[in-house]
C-alpha cells in the first residue's frame, strides 16, 4: 500500500525536478491567463497594461543610471524632465520595497512552519497581534531612547506573534488539533479582538480622536529609521527582513533545532524513532514562524503606518499573501525574497496611486492581482500539472530527433 508522501517531501521533489523553472513557468502561466481575462472582458491588449503596471512598481529606477527611463516606459509626455520621472520612480520603488519587507516576513512565517510539515494559515492573525503589541509599546514610553524603544517594541511584536502561533503549535503537539483549523480560528479571534481594542471607547482607541476607531500615533522615539526617501520612505525594516531571511536559513541549516524541524517535516515517525522530540519541534516551529509574522506587524506599524484602526484590520491581507509568497518561493530564503518582490511589485503597481487610470482601471487591476495570486497558488500546488507540462515540452522534441535520425 502506497503511503502518501508528506507535503515537504513532494516540495523537495519540485526542487530536484524543477528548480527555478517550475516557479517561473507557474508565474508565466498565471500572467498569461490573467492577460486572457483582460482581453476577453475589456477587449484591451494586455501587454500595454502589464507594462503600465510595471511602470508603477518603480523598478525602472534601478536602471536610471544607465538610460533615460522615460524612453523605456514611454512617458515623455507625462514627465517634462528626466529628473521628475526618476523622482516618481524612486517613491514608487520605496513603496514596493516597503511591501516586500512585510511580505518577506509573512512569507517566512508560512515557510518556516512548512519545513516542519505544518501549514501555518495564521500569518494574518499573528501579524495583527504583532501590530497590536507594537501599538501598545510604541504609543507609550515617550522619551525613551530610540535605541531601546524600537528594539523593545519589535521584540514584543515578535513575541506576541510567537505566542499566538504557539497556541496552535502547542495544541498540535499535545492534543493533536490540526493547525489549519486552529490558525484559522486564531486569525478571526485576532481580527475581532483587534477590532474591539481599536473600536470607539475601546482600550487602545485614540485619546485625541474620540470619534474615530483608530489608535494613537506611535511616539517619535519608536519610529523606525528611514533609509531612503521622506516620511514614509524605505525604513530600516527592510534590512531587518533581509536579516530574517539569513536567520531563517541559518536556523534550518546550521542548528540542531533546525535539523530536527526539517527531519520532523520530512517524516515525523522516522524523526521520533531517531530520538527527536516531535512535540517540541511542532511547538517551536510554530512559535518561530509566528515571531516572523509578528515582527512583520511591528515593522509595518513602526516603519510607515504609525497608527492602526478598524479599517486597517479589515483591509489587511498581507498574512494571506504570505502563503502565496512561501509557496512560490519554494520555502527557501532566496525564493521567498524573489517571490515577495514579485507580489509586492504586483500589488504596488496595481494600486490606485501608481497605476494610470487611462491605462487600466486600478480597481479592476487590484482584482486582477487577486486572480493572479489565486492562479499562482493553484498552479504551484499542482505539482503534477506543471511538471507534466514541463516534461511534455522536453519530451516533444525527442520523436522529432528520432525521426530525423531514422
Amino acid at each position, binding site marked *: 500500500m502506497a503511503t502518501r508522501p508528506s507535503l515537504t517531501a513532494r516540495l523537495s521533489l519540485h526542487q530536484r525536478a524543477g528548480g527555478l523553472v517550475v516557479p517561473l513557468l507557474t508565474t508565466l502561466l498565471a500572467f498569461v491567463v490573467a492577460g486572457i481575462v483582460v482581453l476577453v*472582458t475589456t477587449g484591451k491588449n494586455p501587454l500595454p497594461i502589464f507594462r503600465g503596471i510595471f511602470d508603477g512598481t518603480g523598478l525602472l529606477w534601478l536602471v536610471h543610471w544607465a538610460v533615460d527611463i522615460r524612453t523605456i516606459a514611454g512617458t515623455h509626455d507625462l514627465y517634462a524632465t528626466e529628473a521628475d520621472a526618476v523622482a516618481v520612480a524612486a517613491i514608487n520603488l520605496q513603496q514596493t520595497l516597503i511591501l516586500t519587507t512585510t511580505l518577506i516576513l509573512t512569507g517566512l512565517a508560512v515557510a518556516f512552519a512548512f519545513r516542519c510539515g505544518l501549514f501555518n494559515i495564521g500569518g494574518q492573525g499573528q501579524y495583527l497581534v504583532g501590530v497590536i503589541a507594537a501599538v501598545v509599546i510604541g504609543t507609550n514610553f515617550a522619551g525613551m531612547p530610540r535605541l531601546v524603544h524600537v528594539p523593545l517594541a519589535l521584540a514584543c511584536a515578535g513575541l506576541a506573534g510567537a505566542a499566538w502561533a504557539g497556541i496552535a503549535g502547542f495544541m498540535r503537539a499535545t492534543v493533536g488539533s490540526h493547525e489549519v483549523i486552529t490558525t484559522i480560528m486564531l486569525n478571526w479571534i485576532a481580527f475581532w479582538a483587534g477590532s474591539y481594542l481599536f473600536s470607539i471607547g475601546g482600550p487602545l482607541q485614540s485619546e485625541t480622536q474620540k470619534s474615530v476607531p483608530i489608535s494613537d500615533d506611535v511616539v517619535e522615539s519608536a519610529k523606525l529609521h528611514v533609509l531612503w526617501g521622506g516620511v514614509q520612505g524605505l525604513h530600516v525594516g527592510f534590512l531587518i527582513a533581509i536579516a530574517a531571511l539569513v536567520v531563517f536559513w541559518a536556523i534550518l541549516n546550521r542548528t540542531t533545532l533546525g535539523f530536527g524541524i526539517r527531519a520532523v517535516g520530512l517524516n515525523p515517525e522516522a524523526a521520533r524513532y531517531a530520538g527527536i522530540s516531535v512535540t517540541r519541534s511542532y511547538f517551536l516551529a510554530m512559535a518561530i514562524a509566528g515571531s516572523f509574522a509578528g515582527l512583520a506587524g511591528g515593522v509595518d506599524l513602526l516603519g510607515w503606518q504609525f497608527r492602526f484602526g478598524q479599517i486597517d484590520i479589515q483591509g489587511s491581507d498581507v498574512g494571506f499573501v504570505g502563503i502565496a509568497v512561501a509557496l512560490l518561493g519554494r520555502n527557501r530564503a532566496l525564493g521567498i525574497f524573489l517571490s515577495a518582490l514579485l507580489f509586492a511589485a504586483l500589488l504596488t503597481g496595481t494600486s490606485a496611486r501608481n497605476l494610470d487610470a487611462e491605462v487600466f482601471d486600478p480597481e479592476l487591476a487590484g482584482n486582477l492581482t487577486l486572480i493572479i495570486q489565486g492562479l499562482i497558488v493553484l498552479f504551484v500546488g499542482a505539482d503534477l500539472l506543471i511538471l507534466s507540462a514541463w516534461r511534455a515540452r522536453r519530451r516533444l522534441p525527442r520523436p522529432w530527433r528520432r525521426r530525423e535520425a531514422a
Partner: protein
Amino acid sequence: MSAQAEVALANGRITFRPARVAGVVSIALGVLAFWVALPPRTTRSELVPVVLGLLGIAAGLFSWRKGETRLGWTAAMIALLGMLGGVLAAQAAVENLKVVITWSAVLAATLRFATPLIFASIGGLFSERSGVVNIGLEGMMLMGAFFAVLGGDKTDSWVLGLLIGMASGAALALVHAFFSIQLRSDQIVSGTAINFLALGITGYLYIDTYGQEGTGDLPEVPNVNLDWLSRIPPEGLGSFLEKSIGHLNLMVWLAFLTVVLAWVVMFRTTIGLRIRSVGEHPRAADTVGISVYATRYAAVTLSGALAALGGVYLSLGFVHSFTENMTAGRGFIALAALIFGKWRPFGALGAAMLFGFASAIAPRLQNVESWATYGTLFQALPYLLTLIAVAGVIGRSIPPAAIGRPYIKQ
C-alpha cells in the same frame, strides 16, 4: 443508537436511563439559570442562577459518572456557562437588558444570520465527509452571492438567479475537485487558491459590470408570510411566533430542509454510505467497487453548490445587493460550525444556530452605550468556542479518517 435502546424500541417499551435523563435535566437547568435573569423574568438576585447552575453542573457530573461521558461533560459545561451568564445578566441594568433581548427579534435575527452558515456548513459536510478538505467554502459562497445577482439581474428572475449562483459555486468547486482529486494538489493549498480566485473573479466582474453604480433593482427571493401564526392561542405565544418566524425568507426554510435532506442522504441512503466510506477508508471502498474519484468529484461539486446557496441568500435574499467581499469570513464560520458540530448535519445546524445567535446579539449590544464595545468582542465567540472544541475540552471533534489525503488508484 445503543443496542439496549434498539431492543427497547423493538419491544415497544421505553427504558428509563437515569444517566441520560440527568444529562438532559442538566442542560435544561443551565439554560434556565441564564433565562431567569433575562427579560421577561429578570430575576435580580444572583442566588437563583447560582443555585440552578450548581444543580445543573451536579446533574451533568452525575450523568458523566454514570456512563454518559460526552453528554455529561457537554451538559456540565452548558450549565456552568448558563450560571455565569445568569450571574452577569443579574448584575446588569434591567432597561439595558430589555434593549438587547427582545426574544422574537433575537430569534428572527438568529435564523437570518444562521441561514448562510447552515447552507455552507452542510456543503462543507459533503466535501469533508468524502475526504476532501474544503477551506474554499468562503470563495464558493462569494461566487454564489455575485453570480446570483448577475444572473437575477440579467434574467429578471430570482429562481434563475439562484440556480446560476449555485452553478457558479459548483463550477469553482469543480476546479477545487480537479486540482485536489485529479492532480493531487495539497487540498489546503487548493482551497486557499480558490478563496483568492473567487475574491478576484467576483470583484473584477462586479467592477467591470456595475462599476460605481451598484447593482440597482434586483429580483428578490420572497418571504414566507405566515400571518395565521398570530391566531394560535394563547395570545402571547401566537404573536411571538408570528413576529419571530412569521415573515422569514423562503431560503431560511430551505436551509432547514437542506439539513434534514442532508441527514437522510448521508445516513439513510447508499449514496451517503458511499460518501462516508470514501472519506473514511478509500482503499476499502475502492476494493468493493465504489469509484473513489467519481464519489469525491460529486461530493465536492455538491458542496460548492450548497455553499453558493449561502451566498445567494446573502445577496438576493437578505441585503438585495452585492458588495466586494460581502461574505466577510462567513465561509470560515461555516467551517467552524461544521467542526464544532462534529461533521454531522444536526450538529452543524446547532452550531450554526449558536453562532447565528452570537451574530444576532452582537449588533444589539451596540444599542446600549456602555456595552457597545463588547458587541465587537462578542463576534469572536464562535471562533473561540471552536478552538475550545477542537482542543477536546467538550468532547473531541474527530474528523473523517481519510480527510486531506489524495487517493492514488492502484
